[in-house]
């Protein structure tokens, strides 16, 4: 282990990797601060740019955006009562109340320190847990992989705040979309309608940018996003929480770290689920539950710690099995694949510098974020004062240039705009667009695993039920699907799973 850590450090401390990490964390904080632009949209917009980087630089930067956004999101929640990220929704409840009472400083402070603790302990747990899971992953054949991916999609749908059946519709459609183009196994074109652009398949980037970049803007300009900032003078001076604050929030931080991490590891889990769960737990365990909603500091400390630990935890399934469990991880997977690296059980062995470099970059990133969010808090507050009306055209511009730069193909712009309209309508009719992206990324992997299982074992569909791990996973998936039907209260209490959108 020590050798590996040293290898990771050696890799990370190369100037270009430090720079990528810095850029990622700065961008992450920025998009966390800006309401109406989430990590999913931002990573989608930056995907084309990452093609010019080395694989490790790209992965370090994008990961930095993801966990950086968890830090930045709290600033907007506390000062504006608007969640900068969906994983900071619960932070609004007590954070904004603290700000109203003149305690914005300590609220921001405990959010930053809690995030740091949750994040760094999360990385430690990631290192401990990833290696045994990698060993498990190596024993998996195609049937197990197929069943595991079924569980991933089912979990995301059953955690979605929207109706499960609607998410399943979206998932099935996403899988269909992924089959468009030349079939890699037989060479036949599928659903291409002789349109040249469709031969290579529908790219994940235009779809993600449409569903999350363009659609979010359409939804926002329709409602008219108004923001009023709370008093921020003297903020930097009062940012350190008092000893009393630390005593009040210490258990919230400890619980938030573990709840957050393990919910993050679950396929379909991640930062958003983690923050909601932590808030619910803190309210339940508190000796002064009446303070929740009236500026309880533990109501800020718990969720903010949990969303960072959750962000780290959600890397585990991607690194150990090669299976993304939320949309950000799905986009990260596509970056790995574009650079010719397949994440999964072989990653540690074949690309130790990537694996350990990424893990170590997260430590570095969290230290940078602590600096960015405590002494430099004033800079981010200034960004809050830019009106949405002035920056949304720039988001559109990034989407347009980003998609065009992929292949210099106008048709991909049209695909993006079409999916922008589709995403807007899906939000209207309450379908979760996050499921579509996940299904589209998993689709080709699922199909390959599915067809290989059938061809290799020649046991028809029964092969998925004959192998114990595969059977167990499928039973789990069935249980997750049927569970809400058995329960009277059908609404899942933890809100959206994996959607970066501001809701």
């Amino acid at each position, binding site marked *: 282990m020590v050798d590996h850590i040293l290898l990771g450090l050696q890799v990370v401390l190369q100037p270009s990797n430090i720079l990528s990490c810095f850029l990622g964390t700065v961008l992450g904080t920025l998009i966390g601060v800006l309401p109406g632009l989430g990590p999913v949209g931002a990573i989608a917009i930056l995907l084309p*740019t990452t093609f*010019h980087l080395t694989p490790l630089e790209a992965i370090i930067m994008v990961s930095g955006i993801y966990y950086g956004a968890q830090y930045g999101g709290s600033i907007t929640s506390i000062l504006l009562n608007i969640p900068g990220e969906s994983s900071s929704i619960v932070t609004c409840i007590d954070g904004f109340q603290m700000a109203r009472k003149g305690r914005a400083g300590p609220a921001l402070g405990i959010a930053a320190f809690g995030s740091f603790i949750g994040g760094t302990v999360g990385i430690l747990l990631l290192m401990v847990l990833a290696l045994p899971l990698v060993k498990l992953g190596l024993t998996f054949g195609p049937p197990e992989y197929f069943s595991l991916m079924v569980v991933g999609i089912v979990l995301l749908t059953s955690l979605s705040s929207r*109706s499960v*059946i*609607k998410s*399943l*519709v979206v998932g*099935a*459609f996403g*899988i*269909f979309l992924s*089959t468009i183009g030349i*079939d890699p*196994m*037989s060479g*036949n074109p*599928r*659903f291409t309608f002789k349109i040249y652009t469709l031969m290579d398949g529908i790219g994940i980037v235009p779809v993600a940018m449409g569903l999350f970049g*363009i659609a979010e*803007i*359409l939804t926002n*300009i*329709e*409602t*008219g996003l108004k923001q009023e900032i709370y008093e921020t003078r003297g903020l930097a001076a009062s940012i350190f929480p008092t000893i009393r604050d630390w005593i009040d929030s210490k258990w919230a931080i400890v619980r938030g770290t573990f709840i957050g991490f393990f919910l993050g590891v679950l396929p379909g889990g991640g930062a958003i689920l983690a923050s909601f769960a932590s808030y619910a737990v803190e309210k339940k365990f508190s000796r002064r539950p009446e303070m929740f909603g009236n500026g309880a500091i533990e109501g800020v400390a718990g969720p903010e710690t949990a969303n960072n630990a959750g962000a780290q935890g959600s890397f585990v399934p991607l690194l150990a099995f090669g299976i993304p469990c939320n949309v950000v991880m799905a986009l990260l997977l596509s970056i790995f694949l574009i650079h010719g690296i397949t994440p999964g059980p072989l990653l540690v062995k074949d690309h130790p510098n990537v694996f350990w470099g990424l893990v170590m970059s997260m430590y570095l990133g969290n230290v940078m974020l602590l600096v960015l969010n405590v002494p430099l808090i004033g800079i981010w507050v200034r960004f809050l004062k830019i*009106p*949405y*009306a*002035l920056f*949304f*055209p*720039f988001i*559109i*511009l990034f989407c*347009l*240039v980003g998609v*065009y*730069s992929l292949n*210099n193909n*106008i048709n991909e*712009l*049209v695909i993006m*705009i079409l999916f*922008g*309209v589709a995403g*807007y309508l899906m939000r*209207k*009719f309450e*379908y979760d667009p996050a499921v579509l992206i996940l299904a589209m990324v998993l689709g080709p992997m*699922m*199909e390959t695993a*599915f*067809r290989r299982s*059938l*061809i290799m074992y*020649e*046991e*028809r*569909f029964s092969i998925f039920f004959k192998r114990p791990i595969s059977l167990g996973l499928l039973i789990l998936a069935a249980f997750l699907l049927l569970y809400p039907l058995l329960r009277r209260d059908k609404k899942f209490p933890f809100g959206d799973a994996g959607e970066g959108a501001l809701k």
Partner: protein
Amino acid sequence: MNRQDQIGSLVWLFVGVFIILGSLTSLKIGTANDPGPGLFPFLAGILLTVFSLTIFLKATFQKKSGKTNVRDLWATLHWKKVVYTITVLFIYALLLESAGFLLMTLLLFIFLFRKIEPQKWKLVIGLSVLASVGAYLIFDRMLQVQLPRGLFGF
């Protein structure tokens, strides 16, 4: 009855049936031991059809629902701004190669700043010029994206 879910699920149902027919007519399904290229889209189409039919039936037989009218989804909202934005984006994509990046982006920004959330003309022109020229310099010159030159050839 939930009209919103009825309409939505009918669209999905149509897509699902289309996928099934498309896989059956134009692709080889194969057998369970020798799956063809059509098998996976076919299965996805079946799932899509079954799930959307379930939503449709549920929405039809649902007793109480505040969602009896699709038009309610757009009530009290600035839906025209959305229609404008979508239209302008399509025009942008269609004319980008002939008119060039610089001109189209300038026009797009002027429209978005002036029409969607109206700003003062001075600010509109200033920001639009800054954004289009800035983006051109950064993406085309520095990052070598090769944006379309169009009429002007620069």
